[in-house]
C-alpha cells in the first residue's frame, strides 16, 4: 500500500464533495460485486431452508432443516465428501511437490532457462474446460494413448477408459488437475525463492554449509511462510472448483467421482432441486469454515508453544 494523499480541496462545499472521491472510484466495482456475489450468497443460504424446485411454481415453502436431514441420509453426499478430501489432498499435494522441484531447478540461471520456464508454465494458461476435455480424450482408448500405454506396462488389465470405472474415475480429473496446477506452485515458489538475498547463501557457503545444509537452514525457513499460505489458499480453491470433474465425468459414473462442489452443480443443473443444492452448498461453506478455524487454532497453538 503506498503512502496516503489527502484530498485536494475546493471551497468548503466542494471539499466535502471531494471527500467522496475514493468512494466514487470504488463504488461501481463494489456494487457489482455485492449484487452478484454477496447478496446471492445470502439468498443461497436462505434457499437451503426452503423447498425450491425450479419447474414447480407451488414450491418455495420454508421447510426448516428438512434439506439438511435429507443430506445426512444421502449416501452420495457422504461419498462426495470423502472424494473431496481425496481430490483436494492429491491435487494440492502433487502440485506442490512438482512445483517445488521445478522452482528449485529453475532458480539458478542455466542455458535455455527462459524457454524451458515458459514451456513448463504453459499448462497454467490453458482454460480449465479445455484441460478437462484434453485429458478425457487422452484417457479415451479410442483416441488417446494413455490406456494403451498403461496396458502395455501392465498397469491395467485391458486398455479401458478409467473415467467410466467407478473405482478410478476420480483419478482422471486428479491427473488433469495436477498437470494444470503445478505451474501455479512453481511460479509462486520461484518468486519466493528469488526474493532470498543471494548474499545469505554466499555467507553460508563461506561458513562451510553444504548444498543440503543450505537448503535446510536457509531455503526452507525462507520459503516456509509462502508455502504455508499458498497451500492453505490453494486447498480452499481446489476444494471449491468442480470444473474438471463436471467436464470430465459429470461426477459419474453414478456419482462415483462426485466431490461436494460438483455435487452442488449437478444437483442444480440436472436435478433442478435448488433447495437441496443450496443445502449442500451451505454444508460446503460450513466445512470450509471449520477447516479455516482449525487452521487458525493450530496456528495459535503453534505460536503459543514458541
Amino acid at each position, binding site marked *: 500500500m503506498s503512502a*496516503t494523499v489527502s484530498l485536494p480541496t475546493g471551497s468548503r462545499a466542494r471539499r466535502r464533495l471531494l471527500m467522496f472521491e*475514493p468512494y466514487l472510484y470504488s463504488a461501481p466495482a463494489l456494487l457489482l460485486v*455485492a449484487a452478484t456475489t454477496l447478496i446471492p450468497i445470502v439468498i443461497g443460504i436462505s434457499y437451503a431452508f426452503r423447498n425450491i424446485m425450479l419447474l414447480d411454481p407451488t414450491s418455495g415453502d420454508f421447510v426448516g432443516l428438512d434439506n439438511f436431514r435429507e443430506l445426512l441420509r444421502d449416501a452420495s453426499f457422504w461419498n462426495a465428501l470423502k472424494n473431496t478430501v481425496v481430490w483436494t489432498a492429491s491435487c494440492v499435494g502433487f502440485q506442490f511437490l512438482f512445483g517445488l522441484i521445478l522452482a528449485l531447478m529453475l532458480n539458478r540461471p542455466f542455458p535455455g532457462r527462459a524457454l524451458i520456464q515458459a514451456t513448463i*508454465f504453459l499448462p497454467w*494458461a490453458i482454460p480449465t474446460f479445455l484441460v478437462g476435455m484434453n485429458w478425457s480424450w487422452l484417457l479415451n482408448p479410442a483416441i488417446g*494413448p494413455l490406456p494403451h500405454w498403461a496396458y502395455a506396462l501392465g498397469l491395467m488389465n485391458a486398455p479401458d477408459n478409467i473415467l467410466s470405472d467407478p473405482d478410478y474415475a476420480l483419478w482422471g480429473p486428479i491427473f488433469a488437475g495436477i498437470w494444470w496446477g503445478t505451474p*501455479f506452485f512453481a511460479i509462486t515458489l520461484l518468486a519466493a525463492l528469488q526474493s532470498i538475498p543471494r548474499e545469505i547463501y554466499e555467507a553460508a557457503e563461506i561458513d562451510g554449509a553444504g548444498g543440503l545444509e543450505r537448503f535446510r537452514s536457509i531455503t526452507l525457513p525462507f520459503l516456509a511462510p509462502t508455502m504455508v499460505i499458498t497451500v492453505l489458499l490453494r486447498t480452499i480453491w481446489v476444494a471449491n472448483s468442480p470444473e474438471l470433474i463436471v*467436464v470430465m465425468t459429470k461426477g459419474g459414473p453414478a456419482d462415483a467421482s462426485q466431490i461436494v462442489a460438483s455435487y452442488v452443480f449437478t444437483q*442444480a443443473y440436472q436435478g433442478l432441486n435448488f433447495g437441496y443444492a443450496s443445502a449442500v452448498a451451505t454444508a460446503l461453506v460450513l466445512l470450509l469454515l471449520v477447516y479455516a478455524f482449525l487452521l487458525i487454532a493450530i496456528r495459535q497453538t503453534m505460536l503459543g508453544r514458541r
Partner: protein
Amino acid sequence: MRGSPRVRLIKWSLHYGVLFLFVVAALFPLYWLVKISLTPNDSLYTHSIDLWPATISLEHYATVIGNSDFLLFFRNSIIVSGVTAIASTLLAAAAGYAFSRFVFRGRYWIVGVMLVTQMFPLVIVITPIFSIFGPLGLTNSLTGLIIIYTAFNIPFATFLMQSFFDGIPKELEEAAMIDGATRFKALLQIIAPLTLPGIAATMGFCFTGAWGEILFALLLNSAASTSTFPVGLLLYSTRATIEFGPMMAAGVLALLPVCIFFFLIQRYLVQGLTAGAVKG
C-alpha cells in the same frame, strides 16, 4: 554447481533430464490435441496411438469453420470475453486507484468484502443467480454472462491494478496537480499512460478467465444461440456420434486467443500471482 568435472557432468545431465521430463509432460497433451486435429479421418482410428500422424490434413478445421454453430459459439465467446475484459478492467482500475492512493473510511471493509467473495465457493451462488437472472431476462443472454464474469473478475483485477498503481510514485500526480491538473485529469494524462502495460495484463487475465468459464455458461445459457465456445464444445462431445477430429480442431481454435494473451502477459505472471494468490 561445484565438484569434479565428472560429478558436474552427472549433476547437469540429471538437471536437464528431469527438466526434459517436465517439458514433455507439459507439452504432450497439447501436442496430442494438435496431432489428432491434423490427422485425417481415414487414419484417425486405425492409427490412433501412433506418435506421429501418418498424413496431415486440415479437413477437420474446414469442418469446424464450415459449421455455423461453432462460428456462432466463437463469436459469442469473443463478445462475452472481450466486453468482460474491458468492463472489469475499467471498474477494477478505478477501484484499484482508490485503494492505492486514498485512505478512507470503510476501505478495509471494502477490501474485506472483495477478499471474502474470493474465498467463498462459487457454487453457492449458482442457484440464486439463476433465480435472480431469470425474471430479468438475463438467462440465455450474453449480457447476463458478461455481468457475472465481470463481477467475478473484479476482486482479483482490482488487487492486480492496485499493485500496478502502487508502483507509480504518487509524486507524479502531485506534480501534475500543482501544474494545474485536476486529480482526474492527472489520472488520465499522467498515470494512465504509465499503467498501460498493467492495464493490458489485467485485461489479459480477465479475458482468459471469461474465455474458459463453463459452469455459469452451462447453467444460464442453454440455448444454442447464446452458448459460448466451451459449452458448445462440451455439448458436442456428449452427442451420440462423436467426431473427434473436428472437436479437437475446435479445441485448438479455442486455445489460440488464450495463447496469444499468455505470451503478452507472461512478464506479469508473477506480479499477478502475488497480487491475488487466491485465484488460479
